[in-house]
């Protein structure tokens, strides 16, 4: 089986997730952001500059998929790694094993009990440019990011949300918007809103370590994104 186009899309999440490594220096940088003037173009620049990460870095992730086909969300967890410009890996460890890796133009996918599959990113051009934009996000390349998305920043330094709306109509056909939320210089979560109504929420960094309730729902994930549970101490 080589369900190429479909599987390439797996790579969207890893790229996004890598925006959120835990950093020891978040305290002082948070102070820097707080002292900056709120709600200006400069704010986005400053935020993106501080979200940029050197390779390699990695973070745990916890991801939920809400689909009209399913009676409950699919939740998977694992590790996301940024291996350098254009190179990313997403390893799912719970509840099954799967590793997807992009290096240059080639995507390699391994699942338990199946031979590794390789295919070219060329098959899904929309994702190639999406991937490039996330590399831009990780590399702190604001100009490149703005070419691909309309950006708008809400909230304050303690709890912010960056909205990304794809400019490319081809990508917009599939993905309406992506929101990146966090507090200070810590990225907590990415939410992908698909054109068909499906939603994917990826918790990263500290947020990915949250303990899952027995039946996690949209509300629980939304609260995790905002960091409400952490702040109130609720599970």
């Amino acid at each position, binding site marked *: 089986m080589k369900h190429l186009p479909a599987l390439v899309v797996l790579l969207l999440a890893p790229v996004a997730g890598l925006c959120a490594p835990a950093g020891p220096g978040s305290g002082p940088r948070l102070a820097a952001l707080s002292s900056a003037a709120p709600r200006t173009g400069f704010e986005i620049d400053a935020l993106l500059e501080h979200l940029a990460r050197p390779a390699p870095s990695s973070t745990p992730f916890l991801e939920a998929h809400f689909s009209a086909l399913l009676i409950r969300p*699919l939740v998977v967890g694992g590790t996301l790694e940024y291996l350098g410009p254009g190179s990313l890996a997403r390893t799912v460890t719970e509840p099954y094993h799967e590793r997807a890796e992009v290096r240059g133009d080639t995507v390699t996918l391994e699942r338990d009990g199946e031979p590794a599959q390789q295919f070219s990113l060329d098959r899904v051009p929309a994702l190639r440019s999406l991937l490039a934009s996330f590399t831009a996000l990780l590399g702190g390349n604001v100009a490149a990011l703005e070419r691909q998305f309309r950006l708008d920043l809400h909230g304050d330094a303690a709890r912010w949300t960056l909205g990304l709306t794809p400019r490319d109509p081809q990508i917009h056909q*599939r993905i309406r918007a992506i929101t990146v939320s966090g507090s200070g210089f810590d990225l907590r979560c990415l939410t992908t809103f698909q054109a*068909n109504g499906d939603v994917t929420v990826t918790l990263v960094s500290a947020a990915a370590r949250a303990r899952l309730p027995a039946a996690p729902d949209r509300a629980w994930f939304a609260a995790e994104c905002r960091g409400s549970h952490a702040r109130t101490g609720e599970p």
Partner: protein
Amino acid sequence: MTRRSRTAVLAIIWAGLVGLAAAYIHATLRVSGDLRLFLPSPQTRAERLILDEVSEGPASRLLMVALHGAPAAELAETSLKLAQALRADPSFELVTNGANQLSAIPPALLPYRYLLSPTLDHHRLDASYLHAELIEREHDLASPAASLLESWLPSDPTLETLKVLDSWEPPHEPRLLDGVWFDAGGNEALLVIETAAAAFDPRAQRAAMHALEERFAAVRASPAVALTVTGPGAFSVLMQNRSEADARLAGILDTLGMAALMLLAYRRWWYVLLGALPLATAGIAALAAVTALFGTVHGITIAFGFTLIGVAIDYPIFVFSHERPGVPAIDTARSIWRTLAIAVVGLCIAYLAFALSGVRGLEQLACFNVAGLAAAGLSTRYLIPRLLPPGARDYGESRLPSRLAAFAARIPRTRWLAPGLLSLSLAVLIVGRSPLWENDLSRLTPVPQSLLREYASLQHELGQPDVRYLVAVSGSTAEQVLSREERLRAGLAQLVADKAVSGFDDAARYLPSAQTQRRRRAALPSSAALRRALRTALRGTDFRPGLFAPFQKDVARARKLAPLTPSNIAGTPLELTIGSLLVHLDGGWTGVVTFTDVRNPSAIERLAAASGIPARLLDLKQASEELVAHQRTRILWSMTAAAALLALVVYASLRSMRRAFVVLTPMALTMLLTLAALHAAGVELNLFHLIALALAAGLGLDYALFFERSSREPAGRRRTLHALLVCATAACMVFAVLASSALPVLRSIGVTVVLGVIGNFSLALVLIGSQETLACSDTTTSPR
């Protein structure tokens, strides 16, 4: 009626006849560019297949298009719009640019996915297989892949549609950028277009190219976007444009040169016009005859035909140069008519031999020449003299012929000249190291190397099949061929694994045999069994209950489908693909297996031989070379027969073996000498050289006959010399212009004729002169 009014009536009748013929030609003539007209009829099914592949196979109709010169986004946009515009144009059958790959399965074929996909060869749609697949789908959904797959899952949880698409995918696809094919460097957007017309139908190809350029101009994203088109059809249009431009230039130069030469030789402008009359009449008569007999005329017939009847330019010159002061032109014409008639009739009969060659193009050529030469001869005899005033001067008394006659008389005579030249040329032909014959069929329309390189690189980028090697699988029915191809597939896959080839393509890839489809259909579960299996399979998954009702419905439908066959795929994109890979020929069927990047042809050959089915490797290059060789053999036999007939006619009309020998020797020697000279220069001979040699021989016959005729009378000999000087100069001038062309075809004709004319003239002058002394001594020693 006065002489004057009779002349006027004659001129009007003649003009009317020519005009009628021209109108008839205009209304009826269809020019074809089908190369097969000039090839011998194929004898075997393999030869038929090769001819089809070469002249109108899909590979020959493919145009590869590169868009470049602008940013990728603009190129991609242009590519999408161009493809859309071309798909609406009936000149193009298939337009691919990499876009819309996922929706490539037409809705009408979707229900057949369970018969087309190999899944059921290895699995049953039972509870355990379905459960494993559903778990996989959950994993797929746990990724943004969901947005691509979700809409299919309810009807196709095992993703058969994707599997069918995967199996239909070309072995090598160019990279996609912005949704369309690009070259590896990302600088050129690529498209593959199949024209409806065959590659060697220049008119239709030109229309297609024109449509392509027009649509491109209308849709391009910015003026910076440039278009490059390559492929056999584009080449044939380009080469035709070039040869037409060259030929047109040559025509203008020749007309001016001829006019100047005639003015110089006869000092009267009236002669210039009259000199062109027989040739014009010949051209019109020849075209009319071919149109009436054949309806469709090959473009090459017309080009060759006009080359060959060029000999008719000599006929009025003979009349002009043989004028004597005070003698009516009609008497002059009558006095040379016997010799001229031998020349005309001899050539006409010789060309009849072409009619027996079995090559349709040559039959047309024979008809063209016989009609043209007869018309030229008759108009020279019966029309020209009546339009000429009585002779005013004796051209034999001009300075040049007198000096040349004196010079020729001083040339030392030797009996060893002819045998010497004969052995010299034979020695060159036998000892020469370079190959004597050019066998490459593609040289018929020679394409510049730079264009061929561009073609090869685009072909590589696009992963187009190798045009040289094919495996032909034959059978009595399409079904038999398909099941034989299925048996071959394991071996072919092994070839790919062994890197003997990098990919292959055959009809069975798209359309399994009906037997295989029936077997898969039989493996589909009943509705009740599927319902039970699905219920078990869904346990432990999170899919919504009832989600897969469309899947159950599709399986139930597939159980009732009749297998897809070549006859019921009409109107689907599969029809085109299958149509080019599965051919109905001579009451049987032939499947074509194509390859990409053939590295080890002998491995393919071994596989075909060991397969136990009627499959064999065809090397199109070798086969087309054999066809060319085969064609040449026929042409050579025709020319030999023509030469023998010509010798007989000359002998019969001169009624003397010795005189016939004298006339034919310079011509035969010149032919050998020309061949030897070309061979010594390293030229590989082709069809064009042979045609040019035939023309040179025709001219040589004229020269020899007239020299021989006048050999007994010095004044007449000087007049003949004048005529032949004008003739030879004219021929050399006309063909020297062709010889200077950059196009190999025109150059080979030009060089050959110039060599032939020089050889024929000088040898006739020298050799027939020497016979004259013999003839004189004959008359002195044996009184009559």
